[in-house]
């Protein structure tokens, strides 16, 4: 699905189309965030633009926190930033199959409040990835995208772990 607003979709509003949504802020901001991420390189998370030509599309990885079902497992994610980032949230998906209450297994879509109604420019790639990482160990079972996973989390940890491993694909390259 297209997540970056194309110029044609902005043509409804000539004012916006002329000036661009929020101008050049997005590039400067993402460059700073990339720098921050490279300098601090927090354990268990990484992210980088997919190509030199487009800073709006990133790939990343998240490794499960210790003492959780996801310990030592590493998952690929994709990050797609809208042209008016950080006013609007990036779209983040699991590319690796992820069996988790708040992740849609088929599409990789994630249900996390800070990517929706609680989104604000306070967050950045690093804080989002750290939130996602902790979501792995602390799912929100009240509004699951994967109800079976939510149910097993509460009732049967052993089967839960089996399910996680059944779907897990190790990253090879």
């Amino acid at each position, binding site marked *: *699905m*297209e997540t970056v607003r194309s110029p044609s*979709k902005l043509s*409804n*509003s000539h*004012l*916006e189309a002329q*000036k661009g*949504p*929020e*101008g050049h*802020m997005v590039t*400067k*901001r993402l460059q*700073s*965030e990339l720098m*921050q991420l490279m300098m601090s390189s927090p354990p268990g998370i990484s992210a980088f633009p997919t190509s030199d030509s487009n800073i709006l599309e990133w790939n990343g990885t998240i490794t499960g926190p210790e003492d959780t079902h996801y310990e030592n497992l590493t998952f690929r994610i994709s990050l797609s930033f809208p042209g008016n980032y*950080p*006013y*609007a949230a990036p*779209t983040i998906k699991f590319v690796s199959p992820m069996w988790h209450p708040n992740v*849609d297994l088929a599409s990789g*879509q994630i*249900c996390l409040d*800070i*990517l*929706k*109604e*609680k*989104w*604000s*420019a*306070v*967050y*950045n790639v690093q*804080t989002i990835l750290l939130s996602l990482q902790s979501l792995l160990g602390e799912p929100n079972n009240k509004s699951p995208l994967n109800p079976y996973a939510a149910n097993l989390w509460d009732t049967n940890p052993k089967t839960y772990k089996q399910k996680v491993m059944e779907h897990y694909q190790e990253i090879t390259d």
Partner: protein
Amino acid sequence: MHSPANYHDYTEPTGTTDGVMTPPQDDSEDLQQIDDMTVYKLTRELQDNEANKRSLIGSKLPLSVLANEYVDPSFKNKIESMASNGLYYRPIRGDGNCAWRAVLYGLLDLIGSNKEQCQLMKSLLQNYHTMILDEAGFEKIAYEDFIDSFYEILDSLIAQGPQYIESNSFLENTELQNGSIVCLRFITSAYIKTHSDSYEPFLEGESIDSYCARNIEAFSVEADHLSLAALVSALAVVSLHISYIDGSNTESETIHILNPDYYVDQTDFGSIKLLYRPGHYDLLLDP
């Protein structure tokens, strides 16, 4: 003219379907398959498209112009009684940031003709307000670009004088205005977080962090009374004078005055006047 009671819902009759939100190309998609996130994004986009047809900050008009838009006497009479005092107003775009944008313009209007006050505001941002952000744990990477937008406006105001905020290079500058609005939102959130004892009792059990994330830090979410009270205290250089107009039977508007907890370095730039009609804020100005 439009019915101001439906201010937010009103669409300019353009005669074309340009303004109507059309889903992306793959609209064969079954409605059932559209997930929450897509609905949320489409709704947001629709609101943006509607709001974008109005000026961010409209021209300064006598309040009698607004009174003439009303038929309903409960609104009309109150606005007429205010108009008789010679007040003017500037309509502010109804994009969920109206109160913030009105306060931004109101502040710039108060200090615009006095270079020393503009300089003072800039140095307060640099030293005082940034300190609150740091104290509340805001990351520099999150706020620096937005503070820069505010600096840039103040620099232009110092260089060009009050005509700068009358010029299109300011009035139509989405980037600088919105950046400064985020700056105001962050400072307000930071103030609440560093004075949580004063605000927590009003949140009906919601945590400070959650309230600030949903209502203040999130762009395009309308300011409630608590947010404005906190904004005034966070700025610590102005008071806010809000005239409430509604459909009640009273003859005149209800006035709320919000004063800061304290004025930083006894700096009092004066009072910003807002006009509130249900769901929307505009800026009131002296002649």
